């Protein structure tokens, strides 16, 4: 561990990315994510990496994918409006299996909304924002040090599974500063994409083994292969053959499904004896923690289930919890998004209540406490 220091959430994302080996960043400024861009504009320039401010978010996403294909670890950061614009190319990254990390620091939407105020309105968009159907990994840190750790993890997952990974912050987490003790470089586990072991002329760029993840050659190293956003065969070339189409798209699903147990991440606090379990992520988890403490002081047996990977959703973990006769309250700064998934997973068996707020402020512990008292 390094000496403790004060760090902002966005800064921790930037530092985490650097620790993970980031060497390419393309972005377009937007509140409340701009600090990520600003910090990396300087640090990458200083450390021999590449920073480019593109003409818009679409171009930023494109440049990130292009860079990743040359072997770079590449990232971009944005907020709602920019995240919407990036969707088409995020889908491209999914289809062409190009590892990259997209940071979205959520503000109030839709549209320009409230640029400087927190919300969690992009939870479903992060999962479903692009056209077509493909799985995705979305991580939601609740603290500054988690911003750092999860950004490293985001890169590791992106590289390991050749997928775009989304770091979904909210303005609270992105902008708050906390005391952090960062692990020193040798304490950080770094995963790099699997390199082809075949000779160039034997390389089949989209053929995978048991793990469903193909190895990935970098452009410029003699493999001379083709990458497209069209549905393609193992060789990388467009096809309309129904069997190949289905099996290619299945593989995109399977490579996440198959590894879901490794990918999902969640935390439980005081759930053992809880009669009411609050479900929260990101900034709201902080309010919930306080509310829980307050509730416990009143003698209410309350716990928290915190999905850290919201997609894939920690379904099994929640199901386990739901076997006891607990009531759930989803706490979100939106009109109920992850709540839908919770209802889907445990709705038939357990009562699921909601506590939602989108007024530009972090939901207060009191508000949550009131809701706890109501449903207890």
């Amino acid at each position, binding site marked *: 561990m390094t000496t403790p220091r004060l760090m902002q959430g966005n800064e921790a994302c930037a530092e985490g990315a650097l620790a993970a080996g980031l060497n390419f960043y393309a972005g377009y400024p937007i509140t409340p994510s701009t600090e990520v861009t600003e910090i990396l504009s300087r640090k990458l320039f200083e450390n021999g990496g590449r920073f480019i401010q593109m003409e818009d978010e679409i*171009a930023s996403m494109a*440049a990130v*994918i292009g860079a990743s294909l040359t072997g770079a670890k590449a990232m971009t950061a944005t907020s709602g409006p920019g995240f919407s614009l990036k969707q088409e190319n995020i889908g491209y990254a999914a289809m062409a299996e190009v590892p990259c990390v997209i940071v979205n620091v959520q503000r109030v939407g839709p549209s320009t909304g409230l640029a400087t105020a927190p919300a969690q309105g992009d939870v479903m968009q992060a999962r479903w924002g692009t056209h077509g159907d493909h799985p995705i990994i979305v991580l939601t840190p609740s603290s500054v040090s988690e911003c750092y750790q999860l950004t490293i993890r985001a890169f590791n997952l992106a590289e390991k599974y050749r997928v775009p990974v989304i770091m979904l912050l909210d303005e609270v987490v992105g902008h708050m500063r906390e005391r952090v003790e960062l692990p020193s470089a040798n304490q950080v586990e770094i995963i790099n994409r699997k390199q082809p072991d075949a000779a160039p002329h034997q390389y089949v760029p989209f053929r995978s083994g048991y793990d469903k993840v193909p190895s990935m050659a970098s*452009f*410029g190293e003699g493999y001379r292969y*083709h*990458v*497209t*956003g069209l549905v393609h065969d193992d060789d990388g070339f467009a096809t309309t053959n129904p069997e190949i189409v289905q099996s290619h798209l299945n593989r995109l699903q399977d490579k996440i499904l198959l590894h879901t147990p490794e990918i999902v991440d969640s935390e439980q606090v005081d759930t053992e004896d809880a009669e009411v379990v609050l479900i929260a992520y990101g900034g709201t988890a902080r309010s919930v923690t306080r509310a829980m403490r307050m509730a416990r002081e009143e003698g209410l047996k309350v716990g928290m289930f915190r999905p850290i990977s919201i997609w894939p959703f920690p379904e099994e973990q929640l199901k386990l919890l739901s076997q006891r006769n607990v009531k759930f309250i989803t706490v979100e700064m939106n009109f109920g998004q992850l709540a839908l998934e919770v209802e889907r997973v445990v709705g038939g068996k357990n009562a699921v209540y909601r506590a939602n707020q989108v007024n530009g402020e972090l939901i207060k512990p009191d508000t949550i406490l009131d809701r706890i008292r109501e449903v207890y």
Partner: protein
Amino acid sequence: MLPEVEQYFRIEKLPHMWCPGCGNGIVLHSLINAISGLGLDQDKTTIVSGIGCASRAAGYLDFDTLHTTHGRALAFATGIKFSKPELNTFVLMGDGDCTAIGGNHLIHAARRNINLTALVFNNNIYGMTGGQYSPMTPNAKRATTAFYGNIDRSFDLMELAKGAGATYVARATTYHTELLTKLIMEAHKNKGFSLVEVVTACPTAYGRYNKLGKPADMLKAQKENAVNIKSLKDGIVPEGKFLIGELYRAEAPEYIDQYLQAATKLREKGGK
């Protein structure tokens, strides 16, 4: 099989998917001749394209090839080139791809003067989607979305690229294949953003609606209407004709150079 085709094509993918008489195949032939003429390392050369008939070119060429999303080829290419500047990067786009949805990336690549060689297959139409007018469709020409003739003005791509900051702009046709090869070579040698517009025939989605005859007739029209800039007197382009050749050249610092030099200078000074 032509030796240059054997060398630079994924020949197992031939014949290509383009219509009989489509000019795109001719452009590719000139492109590989240029690459061969330049003696570029095939392993260090990458082809980036957008979406459209023209953009399908990437799949046929034996390099690292990237077939991106519609309009975004230059932005993807910027990531590639900036990340690995030693790669020779050719960007192949349709006229719609480059100047309609992709217009912003075009002007910004030109502004940065980033060292990319852009080739615009100008068939004056959206070919892939079946013949809607593009920003390069001449006024009054017919298209499936201009049943009574196109009322839109078209871009002068040379003026646009120049106005945005490109440092090399040229135009050829698929009839003038040797000129085309030469211009692509020159474009690639220019250290900065270079654009070569190729006037190419789309007999299916443009020629047919506009009664331009067979593929050979469209090629003949290219021959007849193109005026080499070198042969131009008094700078006046005759009505109905268009210029070919090297149309514009300028000196300006290249983007990646600027970045790397500044970064190196900083590190030499001991950083921060």
